[in-house]
């Protein structure tokens, strides 16, 4: 302890006195900037695991067909699986209205000026939803291939959707999202004859960014490939534990 002013009684080992007589100290923080978000995401994840809910974070640019894929999936698998949806958009409840029309439980989050969902928003959305045991929760993120990449929501899998009307170099231009996803859906393949989109090239590009990425090609309009997506979903749903 300092005899002059009595400072230095703090025995915390991560405080070091730098300039004693100006009372400057170094605090070793070593904390992830997204620490708070990550804690809340883990809390969400724990909740989902406890209720055996498969939470999927759907990300893409605007207009890739996230909502159309959901509508189709919710209707086709209505009698086989139990679903709920969280819709993220800057404004309007248009997407939630579309999901509501399929008679699925849905909550809309409007991010206002925000460009992504975060774990805190999802936590509050989930609180009001009364999710059922052994269900699938789709979290449709804000249409944006950049910002949502950074924010863990507590999901089990992240699904990135790209459509054939976009550029086949998209995985290289927006690598973070493809790097952090586990499944890539290439949508609107019924339009392939009309657009200069090289599907083999996009797959190769996506694999360059993330060698573990699974890829499914489908069309919500023609229905081609949907079976693969449904099988993937069913394979991810854990059989409920028998008590």
């Amino acid at each position: 302890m300092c005899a002059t002013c009595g400072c230095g009684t703090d025995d915390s080992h991560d405080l070091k006195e730098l300039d004693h007589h100006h009372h400057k100290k170094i605090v070793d923080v070593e904390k992830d900037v997204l620490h708070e978000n990550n804690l809340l995401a883990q809390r969400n994840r724990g909740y989902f695991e406890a209720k055996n809910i498969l939470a999927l974070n759907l990300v893409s640019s605007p207009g890739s067909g996230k909502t159309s894929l959901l509508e189709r999936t919710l209707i086709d698998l209505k009698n086989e699986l139990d679903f709920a949806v969280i819709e993220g958009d800057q404004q309007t409840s248009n997407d939630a209205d579309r999901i509501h029309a399929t008679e699925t439980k849905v909550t809309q989050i409007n991010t206002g000026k925000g460009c992504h969902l975060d774990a805190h928003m999802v936590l509050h959305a989930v609180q009001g939803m009364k999710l059922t045991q052994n269900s699938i929760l789709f979290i449709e993120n804000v249409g944006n291939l950049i910002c949502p990449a950074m924010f863990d929501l507590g999901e089990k899998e992240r699904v990135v959707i790209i459509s054939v009307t976009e550029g086949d170099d998209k995985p290289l231009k927006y690598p973070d999202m493809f790097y952090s996803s586990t499944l890539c859906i290439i949508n609107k393949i019924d339009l392939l004859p009309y657009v200069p989109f090289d599907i083999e090239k996009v797959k190769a590009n996506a694999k360059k960014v993330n060698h573990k990425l699974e890829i499914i090609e489908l069309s919500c309009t023609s229905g081609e490939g949907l079976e693969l997506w449904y099988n993937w979903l069913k394979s991810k749903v854990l059989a409920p534990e028998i008590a």
Partner: protein
Amino acid sequence: MHELSVVMSIIDIAQKESSKANASIIDEIEIDIGCFSTVEIDAFEFAWQQAVKETILETTVKKVNHIKGKAKCLNCSAEFALENIYDACPVCGEHLIDIIEGKELRVKSLIVS
């Protein structure tokens, strides 16, 4: 523009850590930002200038360590500098790589008084 959220989180961490250390002034903050952290430095600087106004970080000197990318090849175990996430291993040409440095985004330390 998720950089604003990043800056807000940094302000939050700085406030909590400085009050834990019973400090009222933060003279310096040291932040690690990896090149694959998805933070765009220009956007970060712009968000910083606006967001720190009237906070404990308003007059703080900001020191940013830009951390370069480094990867390990899962095929041949070579370690190499990684410029783009989609780069192949320079030794064997495989894309089976694991990023080992460059994803950092953390508040490293504060100098408080």
